[in-house]
């Protein structure tokens, strides 16, 4: 494997990946089973085995290519690739790491902005109430993504089926949730730096 390009800290993303997750890309022998198993491979710009290959070759700009890939946001973490990989490369864990890195280094693919908005809105919802409030989630997601009309037509029907709650459930100890959020995000920054 060639020497990969280095980030400002002097460490390559490959080292970070290995340190944070224990995933070793050199185990992959490019059989392509992950890509064949992936239900969304045809929606991806770089398939799972292709991403592993980019890591293995370590050509110029490979970090930007991987962190800016749409694939890492298309991935649903259904874990089929990992379940079938003969070399047990934990691709879903690698994808988790790449998404977090992509956000941290501001390399998120522009096509993925809706998907990222959804995840962020979801986390905001549980951050402040402790539990997911579905109506609030959808409303906040709309405000964030500007998809104002999507799903609105379903609302009255869902309401009559008793599936829409008008008020969120608040847990009592919301401070403990704030603590978890605050510490999780600050710890991760330290760990990566």
């Amino acid at each position, binding site marked *: 494997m060639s020497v990969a390009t280095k980030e400002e800290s002097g460490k390559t993303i490959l080292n970070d990946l290995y340190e944070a997750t224990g995933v070793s890309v050199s185990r992959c022998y490019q059989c392509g089973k992950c890509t064949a198993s992936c239900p969304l491979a045809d929606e991806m710009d770089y398939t799972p085995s292709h991403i592993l290959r980019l890591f293995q070759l370590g050509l110029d700009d490979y970090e930007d290519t991987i962190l800016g890939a749409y694939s890492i946001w298309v991935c*649903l973490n259904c874990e089929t690739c*990992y379940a079938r990989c003969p070399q047990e490369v934990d691709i879903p864990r690698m994808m*988790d790491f790449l998404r977090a890195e992509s956000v941290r280094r501001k390399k998120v693919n522009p096509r993925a902005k809706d998907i990222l908005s959804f*995840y962020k809105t979801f986390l905001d919802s*549980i951050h402040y109430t402790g*539990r*997911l409030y579905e109506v609030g989630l959808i409303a906040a997601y709309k405000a964030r993504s500007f998809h104002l009309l999507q799903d609105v037509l379903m609302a009255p029907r869902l309401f009559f089926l008793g599936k829409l709650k008008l008020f969120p459930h608040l847990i009592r100890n919301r401070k*403990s949730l704030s603590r978890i959020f605050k510490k999780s995000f600050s710890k991760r920054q330290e760990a990566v730096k």
Partner: protein
Amino acid sequence: MTKIAYYPGCSLLGSSREYDESLRAILPGLGVEPVVVPDWNCCGASSAHMLNHDLAISLPARILSLAETLGVDEMLVPCAACYNRLVVARHDMAESPDLRARITDITGMKYAGTVKPLNILEFLEKYADVIKEKIKTPFEHDVACYYGCLLVRPPKVMKFDRCEDPQTMDAIMAALGAKAVDWAFKVECCGAGHSIARTDLVGKLSSKIVDNAVNSGAEAIVVACPLCHSNLDMRRNFINRAAKKKYTIPVIYITQAIGLAMGFGDRELGLNRHLVKVRFPKKPAAQVRPETITTAPAPQTEQTEEA
């Protein structure tokens, strides 16, 4: 009454409340009393691990710590997504003492790792004999048992059933009098987390699942996960659009199927809350000849319309 810790999860209070209702309806019959974990929080679902690994372990860790205060060994987790997150968190913390120390520092709570999460199928399997005794009207329908991703994967961590062709739900349904059809999409992904941001992809993935179930001769799809249910039921418009067909096959929770066999009414089981009406067109025929269904593969054509 046996007491068991119960973690409903957010979906069961909102869009999947019929799952909670049907589960609570059948539990007394099994002699089980659910004790809700006090002040439980959201498990973080996929959004947490998509963006922050520590958060994705800490949120379930708080739930496990709270469950430990109840002094129980097992916690029933009907939602497959919550179950997956809880098992992964427990597994990762058991594997790595460093991680465990870091997470208990984040949550600020004691964690012993003594409470084992049970998914709905593991739980029902334990009570299979009791369920059999309680059957009033056998559930004589052909069903496609759909497990989805989260109960079986990653197999190394979940250690539940066979990861490519699980059998637990098939066995429970067979005990109720149903015939579990042999089909190919038992553990395929329905699109789960993209339900809101990329509904088109959910339509595409879920349409393959519904199509295969219908073509395998199923009258209903039985699920054990609120995400699978909402994608296959609430997103049926997108499925029909993606497949250019009109599927009418209902999607029911396994607890609803058990409830029906135990003689509960539709409303008690929340069957009225589904977007796709729960009807079994072949019901009279199936009651007359429960074993001869294999000779008549034709009835499915009434459920599909060519584009």
